[in-house]
């Protein structure tokens, strides 16, 4: 076995293109997960509707992401690209997790905070927007950050629905020239290149908001 540096540099542009797609999926999917998860966490507090929603989210959490990807991709109209399906499915899938994170954060806000808001006659919008959510979200930033990295690492599953992200690209260039070791090593390094700084950034955020 040998290592061909020159070949590795030659395919780097292809790999970087794949990385671009991976990052795109992660960023947009994560935004969906952050926003949808928050809405789910709030709506879940409504008695009956909330229980139904909880059951749906439980279903999403207990079935594999790859099956959800393939299932939705096959059902979706052919005009919808694999990339779009991938982003939406991964975003919704992770929103089932972020909703639980938000829920724990909301439940962690002291009862006295709700009571003080009520004693001041604050409308629900202010109670949620200015008091409960700022405190709840601050507490769950580390947990939310972990899901960003988990999601990033899950993007290669999009291979199953033909999205040319980083891993697919590596597989393509690697198998075309039989240099699988170089291709996959480069993929691993590129993933590290993104996830390590992200982890550091998350830890910084964590420290900044941990004060309160």
């Amino acid at each position: 076995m040998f290592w061909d540096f020159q070949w590795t540099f030659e395919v780097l542009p292809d790999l970087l293109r794949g990385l671009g797609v991976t990052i795109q999926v992660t960023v947009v999917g994560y935004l969906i997960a952050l926003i949808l998860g928050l809405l789910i966490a709030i709506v879940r507090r409504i008695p009956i509707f909330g229980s139904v929603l909880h059951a749906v989210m439980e279903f999403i959490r207990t079935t594999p992401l790859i099956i959800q990807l393939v299932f939705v991709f096959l059902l979706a109209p052919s005009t919808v690209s694999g990339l779009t399906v991938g982003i939406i499915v991964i975003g919704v899938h992770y929103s089932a997790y972020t909703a639980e994170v938000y829920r724990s954060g909301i439940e962690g806000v002291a009862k006295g905070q709700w009571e003080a808001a009520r004693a001041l006659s604050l409308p629900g919008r202010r109670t949620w927007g200015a008091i409960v959510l700022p405190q709840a979200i601050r507490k769950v930033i580390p947990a939310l950050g972990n899901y960003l990295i988990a999601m990033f690492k899950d993007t290669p599953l999009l291979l199953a629905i033909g999205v040319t992200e980083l891993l697919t690209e590596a597989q393509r260039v690697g198998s075309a020239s039989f240099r699988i070791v170089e291709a996959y090593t480069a993929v691993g390094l590129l993933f590290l290149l993104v996830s390590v700084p992200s982890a550091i950034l998350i830890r910084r955020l964590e420290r900044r908001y941990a004060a309160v």
Partner: protein
Amino acid sequence: MPPSDIPATEGPQGVGDGSKDQPLIVFDQVVKRFGDLTVLDHLDFSVAPGERVTLIGPSGSGKTTILRLLMTLEKVTEGCIWVGGEPYSHMRRGGHLTPAGEGYLRERRKRVGMVFQQFNLFPNMTVRQNIIEAPVHVLGTSKAEANARAVELLDMVGLGDKIDAHPTQLSGGQQQRVAIARALAMQPEILLLDEVTSALDPELVAGVLDVLREIAETTDITMLCVTHEMGFARDVSHRVLMFDQGQIAEEGTPEQIFGEPKEERTKSFLRSVLDNE
């Protein structure tokens, strides 16, 4: 169990007749149960405008529940609470009193302010934001006006220099004084004080009580106070209610209750409190 409808519109005696001596707060046969536990048992009492009433009694006797009912943090199980001659726990609908809806309660409880044992300041806001939040977003006061009022109130509680601090940077006593300022910023007619010094280190109690004494002396705000600070109760209150098992065991002026209590329950309670001091 939800509170039931009451087929009366006129309310208890002395309510709604428009007389000048009309009580501000009336508890009319109020029952509060938590599951099987009866915390308040057909309680009747009233408070005159401007009156300062201290509620004393062993823990679990229902004192705090009275304040929580007035703050609408709890709902009555039976009976009705009246404030200012109008139903408070209930609302009028078609000649009957039905349990008040959320919108009605939000409107009515603006006249009532509460200071909690655990302060309950909003830790994500500065002292200033804590104080102006409700005036701005509930009363619609302009930010400038609310700010000016916050400065005044903080000066009154002796924390003028802490306006831009966060609650976590303050001592318990300072936090509680901010909480008092926050409650007063809504200009309530009725101020509820729920064991406001119980969570404080002993050396911080005096500062908070001094602020409350000043409020008692300089305003005509009606105060209901649950406390174990008997000295404070004696100085500030017009009337003392001794609670036991969800009912009033004895009531009178501070001189009567602390000087020559009649009931054995009152005597033994006062003994146990004074022993601890």
